[in-house]
């Protein structure tokens, strides 16, 4: 026979003012199975909790109902109290008579009646609660970091330095990400590669980091502490063990006219190439779509060119190489896949809601470039060795116009958010140009200057006050080519006049978007993403680097537009989360999980189809001889998050959700309605 204790809280006046708490306690005292019912001023206070603990001991209670505030407020508090008095914590429940009753009703009689109902419903539920124990699952102390940009590099190094092994997967031939393409960085104007390259080398040499470049995550199974990740190692065309990175093959390749991805199309590269001189690993990759030999082979023709093979003294070139799959077991995953730029005037990767800017002539006017292209022009290692020259004729531009918010803050073209970094990098570009081209004119069209950050506002002010950048507040309506110049048709909203500039070059500060393919990766990881494709954090303030899937963390610009300091901070935060997770032998989880009754399961697997987490597996039921009698569903408690969709879907009701069983729900319905 159940012996339930009911504890009605006045919450000072908060409940007591509208609900007759004493009457509630008295009414509940009459409910069969209730062994003890009292009301008290503040149940969550120490004396209040003592009251509960003492009653559990004295009255040998089997369950506790606290009629007080929302369980979101104090369920943990009271369960802990019940637990310390020797009761299973999951036999303690709360009836919400504050938020759901006293605060929203004025009539004392009906509020009291409702409070009695709510408490009775909880009593009936608790009568059917069973002791549950927290779920304990083992942890593999090894982390996967997806993405080898600055965020991924930082996360990998911090985790590895903390003593855990790391697998770092990068889809490009080299790690380094966008940061390796930058010239200088704001607000200090230190050289990007000078601060990044040592970290890249550190990754390469770290004994606990396994670097897999030119690789992508193929599939992810498992759950926190126990992920099994399959990684596709794309065919490089080069044997990693034999190659010593001498570069003979890239020099030998006759097809050197391919637009370089690293130089944003402003420079050229061969068909077998290392993306940039400081690449890590320093291994070339064969561009299979452009290699003369492979094109000939794909058309069934004989081998047309063997120059690289002939040049390689170690026999490392291997055209027969196929994609390989490796499986890694890890306990935590850090997503750090970074960003791409809004493709101004071009197809937006199949996104029909993004339209591009025909009015700016990008793609038709060669001297209209985007911010990353400017970085390459300004970079000492870039195609112009750091000289800012027009792509069209190689001339030094005397006037450069910079447009902020291209793609950003523009719902009409599809992206309404602020990309956060453009104000800063445009100021930097204007400064770099003014440094390099003495007397050149740098005109910046802006809407607002958003320079919140340490030393940021000072930086943009310096661009204006000391470096002579002309800031014009207004957007540009259109641009067109007129002979040698680009006519920029703008408006100075502060001066109240149309403002036109004849520019030699225009740099568009285009928006930041998540990497293409982020949706499919997010689906593999079961993490949610917003409509732009940015990975959703578990809580925007309090859990900024966790995702809604336990054990998967997020760092850098794949979560929202981020600059380098933000990305690095997030990366270190994920490392601390990962190391915190790894500090446990076993993980503990709330036992709100689904359980299948194998005896009645009909094996229709509707549950498997609806489970958002892939927690349902197939289990064979065998007789003593080992013959398979039937195949039934089984829920992996480590993966199950307890939504209960399977339970409602199961036609034969052979799945139950612990803590929210059919019987408990039924009892609550009946307790209210009779």
């Amino acid at each position: 026979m159940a012996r339930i204790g009911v504890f009605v809280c006045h919450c000072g006046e908060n409940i007591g003012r509208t609900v007759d708490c004493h009457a509630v306690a008295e009414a509940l005292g009459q409910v069969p199975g209730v062994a003890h019912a009292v009301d008290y001023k503040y149940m969550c206070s120490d004396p209040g909790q003592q009251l509960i603990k003492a009653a559990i001991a004295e009255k040998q209670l089997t369950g506790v109902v606290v009629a007080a505030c929302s369980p979101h407020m104090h369920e943990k508090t009271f369960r802990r109290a019940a637990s310390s008095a020797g009761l299973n914590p999951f036999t303690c429940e709360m009836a919400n008579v504050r938020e759901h009753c006293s605060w929203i009703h004025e009539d004392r009689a009906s509020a009291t009646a409702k409070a009695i109902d709510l408490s009775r419903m909880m009593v009936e539920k608790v009568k059917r609660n069973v002791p549950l124990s927290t779920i304990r699952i083992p942890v593999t102390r090894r982390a996967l970091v997806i993405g080898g940009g600055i965020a991924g590099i930082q996360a990998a190094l911090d985790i590895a330095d903390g003593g855990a092994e790391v697998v770092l997967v990068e889809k490009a031939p080299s790690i380094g990400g966008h940061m390796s393409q930058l010239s200088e960085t704001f607000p200090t104007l230190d050289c990007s590669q000078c601060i990044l390259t040592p970290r890249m080398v550190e990754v390469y040499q770290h004994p606990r980091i396994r670097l897999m470049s030119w690789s992508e995550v193929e599939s992810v199974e498992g759950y926190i502490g126990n992920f099994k990740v399959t990684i596709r190692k794309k065919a490089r065309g080069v044997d990693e063990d034999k190659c010593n990175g001498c570069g003979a093959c890239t020099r030998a390749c006759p097809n050197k006219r391919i637009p370089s991805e690293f130089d944003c199309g402003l420079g050229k590269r061969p068909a077998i190439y290392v993306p940039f001189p400081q690449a890590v690993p320093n291994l070339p990759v064969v561009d299979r779509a452009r290699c003369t030999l492979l094109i000939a082979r794909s058309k069934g023709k004989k081998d047309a060119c063997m120059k690289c093979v002939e040049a390689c003294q170690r026999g490392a070139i291997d055209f027969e190489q196929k994609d390989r799959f490796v499986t890694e077991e890890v306990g935590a995953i850090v997503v750090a896949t970074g960003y791409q730029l809004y493709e101004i005037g071009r197809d937006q990767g199949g996104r029909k809601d993004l339209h591009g800017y025909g009015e700016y002539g990008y793609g038709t006017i060669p001297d209209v470039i985007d911010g990353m292209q400017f970085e390459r022009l300004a970079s000492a290692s870039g195609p112009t060795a750091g000289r800012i020259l027009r792509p069209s004729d190689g001339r030094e531009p005397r006037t450069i116009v910079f447009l902020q918010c291209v793609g950003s803050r523009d719902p009409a073209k599809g992206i309404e958010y602020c990309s956060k970094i453009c104000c800063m990098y445009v100021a930097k570009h204007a400064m770099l140009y003014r440094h390099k081209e003495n007397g050149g004119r740098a005109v910046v069209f802006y809407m607002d200057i958003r320079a919140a950050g340490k030393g940021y506002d000072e930086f943009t002010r310096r661009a204006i006050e000391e470096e002579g950048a002309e800031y014009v507040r207004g957007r540009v309506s259109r641009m067109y080519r007129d002979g040698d110049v680009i006519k920029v048709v703008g408006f100075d909203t502060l001066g109240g006049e149309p403002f036109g500039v004849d520019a030699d070059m225009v740099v568009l500060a285009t928006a930041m978007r998540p990497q293409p393919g982020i949706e499919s990766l997010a689906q593999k990881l079961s993490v949610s993403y917003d409509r732009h494709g940015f990975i959703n954090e578990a809580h925007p303030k309090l859990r900024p680097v966790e995702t809604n899937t336990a054990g998967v963390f997020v760092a850098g610009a794949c979560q929202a537009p981020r600059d380098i300091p933000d990305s690095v901070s997030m990366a270190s935060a994920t490392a601390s989360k990962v190391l915190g997770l790894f500090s446990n032998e076993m993980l503990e989880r709330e036992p709100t999980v689904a359980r299948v009754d194998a005896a009645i399961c009909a094996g229709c697997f509707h549950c498997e189809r609806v489970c958002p987490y892939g927690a349902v597996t197939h289990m064979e039921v065998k007789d003593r001889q080992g013959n398979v009698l039937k195949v039934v569903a089984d829920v992996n408690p480590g993966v199950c998050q307890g939504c209960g969709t399977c339970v409602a879907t199961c036609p034969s009701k052979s799945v139950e959700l612990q803590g929210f069983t059919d019987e408990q729900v039924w009892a609550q319905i009946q307790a209210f309605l009779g």
Partner: protein
Amino acid sequence: MEGTATATGFEPRITAFVCNWCTYTGADLAGTSRLQMAANTRIVRLPCTGRIDPAFVIKAFERGADGVIVSGCHPADCHYTAGNYHARRRFAVLRELLSFMGVDERRVTFSWVSASEGAKWRDVVNGAVERVRECGPFESYRALAGGV
């Protein structure tokens, strides 16, 4: 409070099945915002609308409810990513089926109420109470118990 027509008027009895993350929290917010609403509902908290079985709704009517509310997270907001999408299909069918069998559509209210929509929860509750009031007590369902 009895769900029958009395001299003081008919006070409907309404069972609300709500998800823990959005609507329950939204209802909490209605409380913290002190938004006054009708006292006719009793909430049954479940983790997710995906957990809400059509049988719950039917059982509530069987036991004498005059109306039912089912409420959860807005599309794309589900804490469990897709429970509300599954629920939406399930309840689309249930609603039309109940109506076909003669249950007035006004007795069943479905809503998406997010954790920040305390005022919407108030409106949902008051609206449901009003609609059920128009329908009157669900005597015909209660009468089914007959000789049981």
